Each structure stands twice: as C-alpha cells, then as structure tokens.
C-alpha cells in the first residue's frame, strides 16, 4: 500500500514538473517563434535565422524591427564587399575587370549604401514600408548588376550572391509589413 502511494506521489510530482515546464515555455517571450515564423516567409530560412539571431535585439523585436536588423546585415555585408573590391583594385587587373570592379563600386557605394540602406531604414522606422520594399529590391538588383558586369569571370560571385540573398530576405520581411 505504501509503495503504491509512493509511486502515485512520484507520478504526481512528475506531472507537475512536466506541466510547469511546458507552461514555462509559453510564458517566456514568444520571439523565437516570431523569428521562425518570419524567416519561414523568406526565400532563405537558414540565412534569415542566422542573421537575425546574431543580433541580440532580435529577441525582442517586432517584424519591423527584424526587417531593420536585416537591413543592417545588408549594410555590413555590402561594406565588407566594398573593402574587398578596393583591395582587388589595388592589385593589377585587366582593363575589363577593372572597369567592372569600378562599376560595382558604384552599384554598392552609390546604390546600396548611400541610397537603398538609408531609405529602407527611414521607411521602416517611420512606418512607410513601401519605400523599404523598393530599397531592398533595388539592392538585390544592384548585386546582379555587379555580377553580370564581369561577363562570367567574376571574382566576386560569392560576395554578390551573399548580398543578393541578404537583400532578398530583407525584402521578404519588409513585404510582411505592407
């Protein structure tokens, strides 16, 4: 009889622990769920997750906030690529390659960093997301422009693809706000 009671008690305790731990999972911020839900609606789930989670602000951000984080990632990625392009320009290059590299500088410096990124940030912060839609879409196009400028022998394929993917993910998140 005592054994039975003991086992019942153990079971009840187990139940309580299980229940409260599953309750705890629901009481914590829902934002892991938000990040996943959002990223599922982008064309590159893994890139989206890793980009967003690398920024601690994503834990408490709303969708507009997540879009801003992604635009920030676009900014950083483009800046790094520009640094790489500059280092390539410092090495001696064939004329066509040099021209294409300079063209890419225009795409990224003028197109993405000076225009697309600030416009997208302002649009998202001020609640007029359609301009961020255009901005991030344009950023993806600028990366295509850069890549095609090499007519097949691009030294920047990895970087351009990366920027393109980041821009497309950012654009998908922005579209959720429209």
């Amino acid at each position, binding site marked *: 009889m005592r054994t039975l009671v003991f086992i019942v008690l153990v079971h009840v305790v187990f139940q309580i622990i299980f229940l409260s731990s599953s309750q705890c999972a629901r009481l914590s911020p829902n934002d892991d769920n938000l990040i996943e839900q959002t990223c599922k609606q982008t064309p590159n789930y893994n890139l989206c997750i890793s980009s967003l989670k690398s920024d601690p602000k994503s834990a408490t951000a709303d969708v507009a906030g997540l879009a801003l984080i992604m635009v920030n990632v676009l900014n950083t990625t483009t800046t790094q690529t520009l640094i790489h392009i500059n280092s390539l320009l410092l090495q001696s290059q064939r004329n066509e390659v040099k021209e294409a590299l300079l063209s890419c500088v225009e795409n990224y410096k003028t197109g993405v960093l000076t225009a697309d990124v600030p416009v997208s940030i302002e649009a998202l912060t001020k609640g007029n997301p359609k301009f961020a839609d255009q901005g991030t879409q344009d950023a993806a196009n600028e990366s295509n422009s850069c890549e*095609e400028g090499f007519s097949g022998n691009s030294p920047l394929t990895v970087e351009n693809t990366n920027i393109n993917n980041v821009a497309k993910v950012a654009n998908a998140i922005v579209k959720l706000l429209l």
Partner: protein
Amino acid sequence: MEDTLPCSYSPLPNGPPTIEGPLDKRRPRKKATLIIFSGLLLLLLLALFVAITVGDYRNSHNVHENENDEALLATSEPSSVSIPSEPVHSVSRGVSAGVSEKSNRVFADHNAISYPWNNSMLSWQRTSFHFQPEKNWMNDPNGPMFYKGWYHFFYQYNPNGAVWGDIVWGHAVSTDLIHWLHLPLAMVADQWYDINGVWTGSATVLPNGEVVMLYTGSTNESVQVQNLAYPANLSDPLLIDWVKYSDNPVLLPPPGINKNDFRDPTTAWYTSDGKWKFAIGSRVNTTGITLVYHTKDFKSYERLDGLLHSVPDTGMWECVDFYPVSKTAGKGLDTSVTGPGVKHVMKTSLDNDRQDYYALGIYDEKTDTWVPDNPNIGIGIRYDYGIFYASKTFYDEQKERRVLWGWIGESDSEFADMKKGWASVQGIPRTVLLDTKTGSNLLQWPVEEVDSLRLSGKEFDKVEVKAGSVVPLDIVSATQLDIVAEFELDKEALERTAQSNVEFSCGNSRGAAQRGALGPFGLLVLADESLSEQTPVYFYIAKGTDGNLTTFFCVDQSRSSEATDVNKQIHGGYVPVLKDEKLSVRLLVDHSIVESFVQGGRTCITSRIYPTKAIYGAARLFLFNNATEATVTTSLKIWQMNSAFIHPFRAK
C-alpha cells in the same frame, strides 16, 4: 487446485474460498495493480503533455482560447505584432476584375548589367512639359487647389537627395496647370509632430475664402498624426507662407488603429447637418478601410462609428480620395455636391501593390454610407495601368472641372537616380468625368491647356499598314510629341478570325512580338532608326469563344532600352470599345515619360522609358502592325510640343 470450469467462478466443491495464503502470494497481484496504475498515470501524463503542445501551436496562430490552461497560466501571453499565417501578398483578382497581374519582377531576371549611363543619356531623361522640381526626389501630390486666380500644387519633396527621405512640402503655382513657377518650400519638418516627415495632405477651400490644409505628420516617435495648417497671409495670392495650428496635432490614431496606419487625409466636404467631413485610409489586420471624421472648425473632430468602405485582403489604404461626379453634365462638381444626379468615386492607393484603384457608387450624406454600384467590384478598377500612384483630385471652380494629379515614379535603378540627381515626375493633370456611355468607369483626359503647347503639326491620312509591317513616320523630331491616332481593321479579318479561348493580358504576354490574328498594331515610340530600341504602344484584339471581340492596349518596355537595369515589363489593360466606335488613342511623349489615353480616356497607361540610343535627334516614330491577318488603316495627327519652361518664381 482441483479442476475448475475454465470460464466460471463457481465455488469449489469443497466449500467457500479459504483465507489467502502467505504474503509472497499477495505481492504479485499488488505488483500487477501497481504496474497498471503507473501505466495509466503515465498515459495520462503523456496525453496532457501532448494537449499542451498542440494548444501551444494553435495559440500562435489564433486568438488565445484555451480553457484548460488558463487556470495554470500566471500571466497571459503578450500579444505583439500578429504575423499572418500566410504571407501578405495581394492575390491577383484577374483580368476580369480589371486588374493586371502583379509582378514582382522589375528587371529581366538576372541579366541586370549596370548600364554605363553617361550624362548625355541621363540629362535627356528630364521632361519638358511635365511638372518636376529642379532636382532631387518627389513623390505624392499634395493639397492641389485653385485659389484667387492661381493653381497651387504642393508635393512630397526631399531637399537633400534623389531618394525618398527627409520629406517636406514643395510648392509651385501656375495660371494654367502647365506653366509652373517654383516657390519656396511651404512646410518643413520643424515641429515635434512632423519632425519625422511632413507627409501627404489635402486642401479645403471654405466658402468664406479661408483655406484649410490637413496633412499627416510623422512625430518624433514615428506616430502618424493629422495636423492643421493654413496660409499666413490670405491676401498673398501666391500663398507663400504657411502657419501650423498652435494646438497640433488635431487627430491621433484612434483606438484599434496602428500608429503607422493613419495617413493622407482628404479634402473635406460639407453636409446638410452643418458639418465638414473628411476621409482617411487605414487598415485592420489585412482589411483596408476608410475612416470618416466630422468637424465644425477643423480643430476638434468626431469619428464616424462606421466605415465609409472596407475591402478584405487589400492591406493598408493610402491616399484615399472621395469625390462626386455628375451622371449627366460633362463637367466637374464641387466636393460637397450630392444629389440624385451624382455618383461618388471611392479611390484608394494600395500600399502592397503600389497601384491606384477606384469604384463608383452612391453616397448618402445623411447616413454617411457609400454603396458601390457593383457589389462585386472589390477594390475597384485602376486609374492607370502603368506607373501612377498616390493620385489626388481637386475641384477647379474656375473651369468647373475635376482635375487629377498622379505621382509617376522612376522605373530605373536607384544608382541611376543618384547619378542624374533627381527622381519622379507628375503625370500631366487630367480632367475626370463619368463615362456616360458605359456608366461604369471614368474618363481621364489631359487638361485642355496642354493643347497650347502644340507647335507644328503634321497629318497622315488613311495610312495602310499591312500585316507584319513597319511604316516610318516622317516628322521633325520625336521626343516631345502629342499624337492623336485612329485605327481601323479590315472587316474581313475581323469576321474570319477564329475564336480563341486563351485569356490575354498585357502583363503575361510576350509584348509586341506576340502575334495574333488581330493584333498587335499601333506605334513604335522612342525608337531608333535600326529599331534596336523601341517602345511599342499598341492595340491587341482577342476574339473570345462567344465570338465577341475584346480589346486591350499595351505598352511594351521589353525592348525599350539596351540598358538592362530598367523596367522591362509590359503594362496595359482592357479597353471598353462600344459598337461602331473606331479605335483611338492619344499619346503624350515627353522624353522619359509616355502617357497613353485610349478610347477618349477609358483606359490610361503611363510608362517611364529610358533609351540609350533613341534619344535627342536619333529618336524616331513608326507605325507598326504585327498581326498575322488584319490590315490596319490609320489616320494620325502629330504635333511637336513646346517646353513648359518650368522655372523658379522671381518677384519683379
């Protein structure tokens, strides 16, 4: 034990059961019970756990509704931004609803080489007789009005660059809607309630001559609020200086409306209960809505309980416009007019597809309700099948007409906009009238003052264009043109052409290269001599399974430029053509803007074209007929257009 019957418990022959044996015989039975009991508890535990996780999953999609768990929850779930469970993309409503396919494709997929734009190509793109500031970015038209002999035009402007941002109100005046004079900025972002943007608004001219401007401000906390402004000096006909009401904002987002979904107030109208009313677009979840507010003094407001209109799955409604059109008279109506001879137009700009839609209906000013003529119209039909957004009308009491402005953005790359130092133009102002012949759409037509820009004209009478041919038109120059053209197909071809059940839409076609029996035919604008660059603007007639002819008009940008970083889509839409009507179109070509007005303005298409070769003296104009069967006969009148010489105002 003695033998017992296998399925019965009849007592043993030798008396009632004896007292149970020693303890070790008892334990196995208790052990069994224990195991069963534990098993049951474990099962119960498992069931509860599953129920909770399933409930959890459902909760993330629906409103919280979980009776079992509520008692156990210490706090309720925080409900932050609700993510819709499906992506919020606009669903195509199909050609039959007058909506062309939405396409996210701006460029020709991956071949977007950044074109080496040079200054010659870029400076050619500036228009000669369309409104645009001297430089930088412009978007929505704001507060258009006629006042003391002057047409006023305000607009969203970025004083700091060729992209959207730092928005303030630009200002210009004209006596004829064509020759504009730039004035100083009317309003800048200098108050906490508009420090993050002096956004779109509308003017109301009161019967006593006062002018009231309602506009949206983005506050220091990025909340969208409505503000009141008025001219500093009503005796200044140019209305150069503006004052913001000291007690702004006059309206905050109401309960249930998101702080980022409350913008673009309309012109107010006066109703028989002695109140002024205005409308403003918003949304609740994914349903776009129009709110209405009442006021007597434009300082304090009451919100109407109901909604003037709403349509599910359309997203945020921007730049709402609401105005009367006469059912009979060929003239415009003051915004406050109502009555039996009047229909009201309910217009919206859709944030999620950047297109403008309108629907016709009946407004009851006593109950503030508007009912669409066609209950299935949804969001409505498009004003313009090309680039045309954030449009706004005003009543011109001088010429008794309603005039429509529309923002025409760029369709090239941001990089090119930065390089050329400006972005966006306004469409040529259009009069708006109800199409009394069809009763179900509006007619839009360039204001008559455009005709005053016509210089030399050339007529071409009954030019025959056989199937599969191109005819050059010998004109002096081809970048600033006003073209009026009529087309007739040979009746034989119309009758003998086989029926087809393939549904046609400009956006899903292969452009002018897609040959049908009865189309495409029309003009090639901004084309060079070798036709390496060309922009076909054309009719396409499809014969349906019922033998009826359906007419479309398209503008094909796919070969408009050798540059690959510009929009290459095919824009266009359905054209209602009544019995015995000839096919007609008016085209305004002004450098990088081409506007088409078909069948007297039943269907309009605005396009931005960026050639690299077909510019300046190299631009040509052709007739073409790429149909397989029909011969087309065309009569045209083509005028060279003068510049409007838009420049800054200089006091004498």
